[in-house]
């Protein structure tokens, strides 16, 4: 990974003349010799970890944007706490006081969201938007008043919005570390409870879990991590950290504990590399750089993720399409042979037949290259051999596969006719869609069900009229 940091850093450096100084700087940063850098790196990485963990549950509960609303709703609390503390004669900048104010107004915002959702027909999205903007508006009003106060200097309050990551203090980093540890422990201890709550709240309630209590604990953890992170990294980064790592982690796994681990790791890495890059480019807002790193990780995950990534899904899709094409070809061959042979279709009968593309073409609505491609696939799979007189023949494995495919198709058709009351003239297309995804267990079950209704299923003739050898499909 150091090389990628160097690359990015290089692009952002001001010029070649500074190259040697830049390399020194880079080494200095990468070897973590700089005290300030260490503080920032540790703080932001721990924050990323904590956010990734708790954000995973928010994501699963489809509440990703709740953090957005709560974080904006904290502004009036911060400004209000500042005014109250100044009025009482303090400096107004006591961090603890400001954070208490933030927590109170964040919780008030959350309460209002729940209230609106419960007592009116306003939906959650609008409730979030209302609280977010109105609370923020109140915060802005208070800030403009503070700016005009003679008794106190408000400089620094805006760092809650944009963050002042680069000048993070050791005490901030320690607070974030403690929060990260608490949240990690809470997520471990309450893993089962949070899991049930996230996936099936009604079930959790029926099992006697204290649903409301758990909800409050979870939300309190979110508010706590936001309050602590807000001043260090700013509002937008807080939202990004809560949303992006879990969403990225989702692409890599379907198991919750792995997703938590993964989201924590992605949060941590985003923080780590974001902080490192931004120390090399001191004029860039650190929060924004961290968001971009997280965004890049998200993009990579979305494309290459092993569980839900786009590439994997495309590959799966192509694989299924090929399997379907192959099965269509085999079934067409079987049916062609069945119409020609006028006797029970056995592997031998199938192997005796010679198939030309011209004869197969009318059996199905194949366009242009589809038939040729299916034949190529079948030859590659060893189902077909070229015949000396032109055309192709089924091999033994091909003949067996064709019988298997047709059997699945017809079993499913019969099932649809006898159990789903679908007209015989309609079952072919319905069966066509399902037959490719039937697994052996399902087939066995189908056979068992159908054997009860009709013991004479051994030959398995098509339950509907099939076009004759020369007819159009």
């Amino acid at each position, binding site marked *: 990974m150091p090389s990628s940091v160097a690359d990015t850093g290089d692009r952002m450096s001001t010029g070649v003349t500074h190259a040697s100084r830049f390399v020194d700087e880079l080494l200095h940063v990468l070897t973590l010799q700089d005290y300030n850098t260490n503080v920032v790196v540790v703080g932001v990485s721990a924050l990323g970890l904590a956010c990734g963990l708790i954000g995973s549950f928010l*994501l699963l509960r489809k509440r990703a*944007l709740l953090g*957005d609303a709560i974080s904006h709703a904290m502004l009036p609390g911060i400004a209000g706490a500042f005014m109250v503390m100044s009025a009482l004669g303090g400096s107004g900048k006591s961090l603890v006081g400001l954070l208490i104010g933030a927590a109170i107004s964040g919780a008030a915002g959350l309460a209002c969201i729940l209230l609106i959702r419960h007592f009116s027909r306003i939906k959650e999205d609008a409730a979030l938007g209302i609280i977010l903007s109105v609370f923020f508006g109140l915060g802005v*009003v208070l800030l403009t008043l503070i700016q005009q106060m003679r008794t106190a200097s408000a400089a620094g309050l805006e760092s809650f919005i944009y963050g002042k990551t680069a000048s993070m203090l050791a005490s901030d980093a320690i607070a974030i570390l403690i929060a990260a540890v608490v949240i990690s422990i809470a997520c471990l201890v309450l893993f089962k409870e949070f899991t049930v709550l996230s996936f099936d709240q009604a079930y959790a309630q029926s099992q006697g879990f204290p649903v409301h209590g758990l909800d409050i604990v979870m939300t309190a953890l979110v508010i706590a991590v936001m309050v602590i992170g807000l001043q260090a990294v700013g509002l937008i*980064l807080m939202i990004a950290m809560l949303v992006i790592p879990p969403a990225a982690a989702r692409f890599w796994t379907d198991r919750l504990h792995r997703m938590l681990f993964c989201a924590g790791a992605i949060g941590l890495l985003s923080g780590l590399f974001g902080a490192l890059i931004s120390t090399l480019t001191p004029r860039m807002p650190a929060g924004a750089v961290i968001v971009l790193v997280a965004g890049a990780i998200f993009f990579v995950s979305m494309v290459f993720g092993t569980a*839900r990534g786009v590439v994997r899904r495309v590959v799966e899709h192509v694989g299924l399409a090929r399997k379907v094409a192959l099965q269509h070809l085999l079934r067409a061959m079987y049916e062609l042979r069945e119409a020609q042979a006028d006797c029970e279709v056995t592997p031998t009968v199938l192997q005796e037949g010679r198939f030309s593309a011209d004869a197969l073409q009318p059996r199905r609505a194949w366009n242009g290259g589809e038939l040729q491609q299916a034949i190529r696939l079948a030859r590659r799979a060893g189902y077909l051999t070229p015949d000396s007189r032109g055309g192709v023949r089924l091999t033994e494995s091909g003949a067996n596969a064709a019988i298997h495919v047709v059997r699945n198709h017809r079993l499913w058709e019969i099932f649809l006719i006898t159990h789903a009351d679908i007209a015989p003239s309609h079952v072919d297309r319905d069966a066509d869609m399902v037959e490719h995804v039937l697994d052996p267990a399902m087939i066995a079950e189908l056979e068992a069900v159908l054997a009860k209704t009709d013991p004479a299923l051994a030959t398995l003739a098509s339950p509907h009229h099939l076009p004759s050898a020369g007819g159009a499909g």
Partner: protein
Amino acid sequence: MSELLSMVQWQTLDTWIVVVGALCGMSCALLGTFLVLRRMSMMGDAISHAVLPGLAIAFLVAGSRGSLVMLVGAGVVGLLTAVFTQWIHRAGRVDEGASMGVVFTVLFAIGLILIVHVAEHGSDELGRAAGVDLDPRCVLQGALEMVHLYPVTLFGVSAPRAFWITAAVFIANVAIVALLYKELKISAFDPALATSLGISADWMHYLLMTLVAITTVVAFESVGSILVIAMLIVPAAAAHLLTDRLGSMLGLAMIIAVIAAVTGHWSAINVPSWVGFDGQSASTAGMIAVVSGLVFSLALLLAPRRGIVSQILNRLALSVRVAREDALGLLLRAEERGGTLTPTELRGAVRATGAGSGAVSWALHQLQRQQLVRHDSGRLQLTVAGKARATELLRSHRLWETYVEEHFHLPTDHVHGPAERLEHVTDPALRERLADTLANPTHDPHGRPIPPNDAT
């Protein structure tokens, strides 16, 4: 209003601020109505953050803050936000809220970096202009108070630049909504129906998103990125509580936006001095958001049918009516047995059905005032009218008991409860259909007589 205005020095500037604020508010409310109905309010949030890089790039490309370039840049990025969100939502199967969160935070971060870059590396003039227009504080709070700094003369009228732009956008929004009213309406309420009628719901979605982006940018300059969300969503949500019709919802939302703009600016000037900040004023944009929030909470509390207060009143009225009817029924049953009840006895009996003591007192008071019940030497007696009403209720009750026993096969000692609840919601027509269905029974399952229908 003139008295209020005379409290402070209301100048031409203030009028322009209010006019620009109101125009912004109305443009936003118009589009916000559709966002709220389509449950996409947070898209307003996402777009208002995400247009930042569009502005910065437009600025870098054009080298000036020419409005048209800015609008194009914002429109493009706004549309991209919608497209990316959809794409991540569909291709990546990510929850829509989360995909919005990913897109807007990343775009916002890019915007922030670009702005810092512009401010540092641009030419002096460019840098200064960027500092004025795109400085982070301006992005958050807007500069509504400074509208008068850039007057532009058009059609022989000199007005602030912001006025011309917001007016143009407002007219454009009104025109587009009016032209595509039917299409927007159908795709807002039922995208599937819209598609089946040949209206592309997707196309409407992206059109709406582009309009939101452009309007956001225009409002952005005046009220800042977060408060745009207040203008988009809050008036529309408040209007949603007040009406069920789309047309009146649009109108109400715009009226609320104007009220918020006027009251917001007025309070920005006046409220600080009430709370000890003499001679100072607060951010007008912030105050507009706060006032919109207040209007929304008023609607939440007081809306005629859906307000919390009217919900509570309805529930109270219902429980009083039930208590009243229970009291009548109890008096008639006592009369049937040849006795009467004292007020205390009746009160106790009605309370035993589960009514609160307040509701019972109010119900008894109403019964006497409506002359359904007469107070006679310490005993309560039904008047003629009261007896007629009570007989109807008793008839409903005993018919229901018969019906429940016959059709639901409940044991006789279980039929009272359901009948007790159903008698309060049975009107004469239903009662007689019930009697017909049961072939006009004369006695209920307990063997007590069912009073005949007096009307026949």
